[in-house]
Every structure is written in structure tokens, then in C-alpha cells.
């Protein structure tokens, strides 16, 4: 245990800022998960692996001399079609089934993706250098890599665009209608099959953006997907489905929580603390739900 946070007050500022910048990125991934969970009732275990695949797209652009920041435009386009392909091959067969079956199916996709990426790209840890500098604050006691600021900015930009798209466009309305009541939407002429495919594609595209940003700010590796799945799952659990401001807030909250856990408990408990928080939240929600049920009785 150490109490550096109190000894060096600037660490607190640093942790909050780092956490928020990181949390915005988590929120983007979580938003994709919330979308498909709400619309299709599918929990996508392969979410993190789609993120990593997006990261590899940016990395390969970087290898071929294109600035990896362009990855945030190219990766979502490619990933959209990857998403559609996954939907047509697997997801459309499990979409009306039990939640458990979809978890198993996406778990399988996750393992397949990990192995394929490992096979195709190798097991080396890689990263794409953006060459963005660093911003120093408070007499250079607080440092913010510009790549992190860039990634937070792009995440917010994409999230805002998506919200507007969902509100204004025809497909967006159809997606929202399907989420509310798939049967009624079908009766009223919405091609739910198409909506499902598009939803899955949009989710994959969001993962692509996030992946490109992660390759610029952190590192990527074929087996690094799962922590992103867990984090987005948790954010969605906390925020609830269809609650976008909630997703953004709980994303940032999780980011800050992780940073503080890192300083106070130690880096080794960083991911562990996320799991612990997840368990606590699930227990709490169950407790709350059971009380509600009694009340209804």
C-alpha cells in the first residue's frame, strides 16, 4: 500500500486526467456493446478482439508509411464489413435464441479471432507511432501525451456523430424502433434483418476506431482483447442499455477508478480491481432488483 497520492498532490490531478482520457476511449467501445445488446440482445465477447483487429489495420497502415491517425477513418470502414460478414455467418443464427447461446457463439468467435490474428500477424507486441508530442501542465508536473488527447477527442467526435445519426437518419430510427420492440417494428415494415446486420456492422466499426486509437496510444497484441470486452461489459452494466450519457460517465468513472487503483493498491491490482468492481456492481444490482420484485408482489 502506498499513499503517494497524498504525498504528491499533482499525482491526483494526473490520475484524474489520465483516467478521463482513457475512460472516454472505453466508453466508445462500451457504446458499441450497449447498442448491439439493446437491439439484438447479444453480449459480444468478441468485442475486444474486434478492437484489436482495428488496431492492426492502423498498424499496417503505419508500416506502409501512412500516418496511423488515418486508421480512424480506414479501420471503421473495413471493420464495418467484417462486422456484417460475422453477422451473416454466425450471429443471424443465434440472434433470436437464448442469451447464453449468443455468449457461447461470440466466445467462439473471440477464440477464432485471437488465433487467426496470431497466425496472420504473429505474436509480437506492436504499436504505431503517431509522433504527436506531449502537453505539459502545471510547471511540467502533469504530462499528457497528445496521442491520448487525440484519441479522447476522436472518441467523443465519433460518439456525437453516432448519436446524431441515430436520431436523424432513417436507419437510426429503424434501429431504435427495433430495440424498443422488434416484433412491432417488423409489423410496421422495418426490415429487422437488415437492422441487425447494420447494428453489428456499426458496432464493429466503432471497435475499429477504438482499435486504431489504442494502437496509437498503447500497444496491441492478438491476445489483448479480453480486458476491453470486460471493461465495456462493466460500463454497460453500470450505465444500463440505451443510456448514452450514462455510458460516457461510467466510462470515465471506470478510467479514473483504474488509475487510482493503480496508485493506491499497485499496478498489479489494476485489472483485478475492475473485476472486483464488476462483481460488486452485479451483486448490488441483483440486490436492488430482488427488492423491486418483492415490491411488485
Amino acid at each position: 500500500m502506498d499513499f503517494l497520492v497524498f504525498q504528491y498532490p499533482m499525482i491526483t490531478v494526473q490520475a484524474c486526467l489520465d483516467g478521463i482520457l482513457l475512460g472516454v476511449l472505453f466508453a466508445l467501445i462500451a457504446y458499441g456493446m450497449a447498442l448491439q445488446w439493446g437491439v439484438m440482445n447479444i453480449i459480444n465477447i468478441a468485442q475486444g478482439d474486434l478492437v484489436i483487429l482495428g488496431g492492426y489495420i492502423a498498424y499496417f497502415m503505419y508500416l506502409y508509411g501512412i500516418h496511423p491517425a488515418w486508421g480512424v477513418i480506414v479501420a471503421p470502414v473495413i471493420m464495418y464489413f467484417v462486422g456484417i460478414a460475422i453477422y451473416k455467418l454466425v450471429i443471424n443464427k443465434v440472434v433470436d435464441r437464448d442469451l447464453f447461446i449468443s455468449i457461447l457463439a461470440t466466445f467462439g468467435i473471440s477464440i477464432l479471432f485471437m488465433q487467426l490474428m496470431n497466425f496472420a500477424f504473429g505474436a509480437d507486441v506492436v504499436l504505431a507511432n503517431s509522433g504527436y508530442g506531449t502537453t505539459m501542465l502545471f510547471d511540467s508536473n502533469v504530462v499528457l501525451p497528445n496521442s491520448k488527447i487525440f484519441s479522447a477527442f476522436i472518441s467523443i467526435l465519433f460518439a456525437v456523430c453516432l448519436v446524431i445519426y441515430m436520431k436523424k437518419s432513417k436507419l437510426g430510427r429503424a434501429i431504435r424502433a427495433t430495440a424498443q420492440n422488434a416484433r412491432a417494428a417488423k409489423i410496421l415494415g422495418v426490415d429487422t434483418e437488415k437492422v441487425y446486420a447494420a447494428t453489428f456492422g456499426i458496432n464493429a466499426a466503432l471497435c475499429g476506431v477504438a482499435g486504431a486509437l489504442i494502437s496509437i496510444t498503447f500497444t496491441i497484441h492478438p491476445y489483448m482483447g479480453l480486458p476491453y470486452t470486460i471493461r465495456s461489459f462493466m460500463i454497460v452494466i453500470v450505465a444500463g442499455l440505451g443510456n448514452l450519457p450514462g455510458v460516457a460517465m461510467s466510462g470515465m468513472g471506470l478510467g479514473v477508478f483504474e488509475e487510482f487503483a493503480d496508485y493506491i493498491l499497485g499496478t498489479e491490482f489494476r485489472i483485478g480491481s475492475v473485476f472486483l468492481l464488476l462483481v460488486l456492481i452485479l451483486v448490488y444490482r441483483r440486490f436492488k432488483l430482488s427488492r423491486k420484485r418483492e415490491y411488485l408482489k
Partner: protein
Amino acid sequence: MRLNKIILSFVSALVILFSTSVASFAKVVGDKIILGAAISLTGKYSSNGVHTQNGYNMAVDRINSMGGVKVGGKTYKFDIIYYDDESNPKRAAQLAERLISQDGVEFMLGPYSSGLTKAIAPVTEKYGVPMVEANGASRSLFTKGYKYLFAVLAPANLYLDVAIETAVELNGGKPVRIAQAFEQDAFSQDVRLGILDAAERTGSKIIIDDKLPKELNDMAATLVKVKQMKPDVLVVSGHTKGALTAIRQIAEMKVDVPMLAMTHCDAAKLSKQHGKNSQYALCASQWHKSLTYKDDFFKDGMTYAADFEKEFGYDPPYQSAESSAALLVFKDAFERANSFDQKKVRDALAATNMQTFYGNIKFAPGGQNVDKPMVLFQVMCDASGSCENKVVAPLKWASAKLIHPIPKWSDR
């Protein structure tokens, strides 16, 4: 008809029995000595697994083409049965079992990584199969009293203690303040123990002692602490991702520290992936091509590196060099034992005292190589931005002078 069927199944049963019984005497078939190895060809260790396999293959080809192994007046050639352990310790142990009890292998080569070697060692020990391994450096491998395990490399706790000693020396013999961050795996934790020993020996103080998670890709928290507490040395070990993450974030956060010591720099291709940002990093290495050790097969490090590059198309990392050395050790032991009896070969291995292009090899009773010090190299870049690893310690092999302290980011 029915009789025919019975005869047929009887004959096929015989054939199967016969073929398996042939296989179970497969250690030396005709003029071939068959070694077994479980290697990570897929999974998270696959890149280092391939380096290991390339090292083995290179040595097999070289020894075979230069006359093979002479035992009892007859010449034998090496051959290796490989299985893919999928970077999974359980699978590696199963495969070792299979190599020994089904394929009849009587001599083994090691897998990649300490974790997998730890999984295999109890199996080879149980069957009394001598194993020469080249990629398991964890100290815990050598304290279990294994009799059939021999490692050509220096144990993990020696990786970075040279760095601490050097830092103390440069500090005028006065103790230094150390910040360290290690992944939580067998290897990195052993490197950590080495640092703790070195700190105690020199009276140095450890002011930051972080453990990094396996899923590590962000060590900003550790670096913020380093920035605030200003240690004299920062030590990082977390395989390739630890090295890559550290360099990226140190450069991004402009962390100034007089000495930065790491492991896995060449496996992470630091200078290629990070260019000038990796400059001045000190890296522990089992081997470097500029070292002047010699043998009859590969001549010296430079020749080995050139031959390796010609065959596989890349500069050999130390993982390949040490793997090649493992076969030289086996050849030497077979010839001295002048027999394929496992006990005799084991005793010959234990008495090994030789020089290879990779370094001197002499085993302690625990099985680790005690005759080969670690080297430290420093990443040095020229004005054009191309970087090279230059050996800076121990002084005997230094090809460049250590740059210390590392210039501040504001002056670069």
C-alpha cells in the same frame, strides 16, 4: 468371410504393435540421433518459439554437414521431432510425456520460456531423460535439485544486477535509489530478486517497486511516480510488451532518469519500433554478436550472425544463439560419453566444460551455466536516426563507452 476378417484384424493388430515397438526404440535409428522438442509455434510465445526453432535447426544442419556426431567409432546425424505446445504449459507437459513414452525420444531439447520449461522439467526428470534447454532462465528451475536439466544460459537473477553495480560504481561507490517495475511471471520476478540482492549488497534503496499485470499496456502510473520521486535507476522487465510500453511512455511523458535498464530489448526490436526514443536504454542480453567467443562450428558471433541472416533473413536474437549452443553441448556430451546410455550422457553433460561461439559453458550442480556472464548493451543512435545495440558492460567486451547519465529530454 468371417475368418478372413479375423485374420485381417489380427494382422493389422500385429502391424500396429510392430510399428509402435519400432517407434519406442526411436532414439537412435540407423545413423540418426533423434531429439525431441516441444516448441511454441503458435500462441503468445510463437515469435520467440520460432527464434528457438531456427536456432536448433541451424545447429543441426551445421553439425550434420560438418561430420555429425562420433559415438563408438560410428558417425551419427542429429534429427529433431518438434511438436507445437501452443504456448501452453499443460500442453507442453503432455507433449513431453508423448515424446518420451510414445515416440521413444531419450534426449530432449528445451521449449521457449521459463514457464514452459518448468512444466516440462518434472516429466523429463521422472523418465531420466537428459534435457539441454536454452530458454528457461528462472532461478526456480535450478533450486529443485533436478539431475537431468541443463541450461546453457545464465539464470534470470543475474540479468540486471550488473546494471545496479554499474550505477553504484558511477555514483562513486555510493548507494543509489532504484525504481523498479516487473511483470508478475516467473522470469520477471526472478530478475526482480536479482535486483533485490544487488540492492542489499550495495546498500541501495528501492523506492518504487511496482508489479505489472500480464495484460499490461499502460504503465503511466509507475512513470508518474518516477517523475515525482526522481530515482537514480529505473529497471523494467515485462517481456517485449514491457519494453515497448516503457519506451513509448517514457518518451511521451518525458520522464528523465539517469539510467534505464531493461530486458527483452532485442526481442522487442526496440530500435526498429521506437527509433531514437529508445536511445540510451540499457539492455540485458545473454549474448551479443560482437562477443569474441569461438568454436569450430560457427567460428564466432559475427560469422554466426551473418550465416543466420543468410538462412533466415533476420539478425539473430540471443534466443536463437543460445538454442544453437544447446546442440553443440549435446554433441560434445555424446562424444565424451561415447555411448547413448542416458545415465552416461547425463554425467557427460554434467562434466561439460567448453567454449562455444555463444559463450563458455560449464554447469553448476543445479544445472545452470555458471561460466558465462550476462552482457549489457546500450541503444545508441547516430544523427541520421539509425540505431544500434552496442555492448557497454562488462568492460572486457565493451565496444562502446556507456553514456551516463542519460541526457534530459529537454536537451535532446
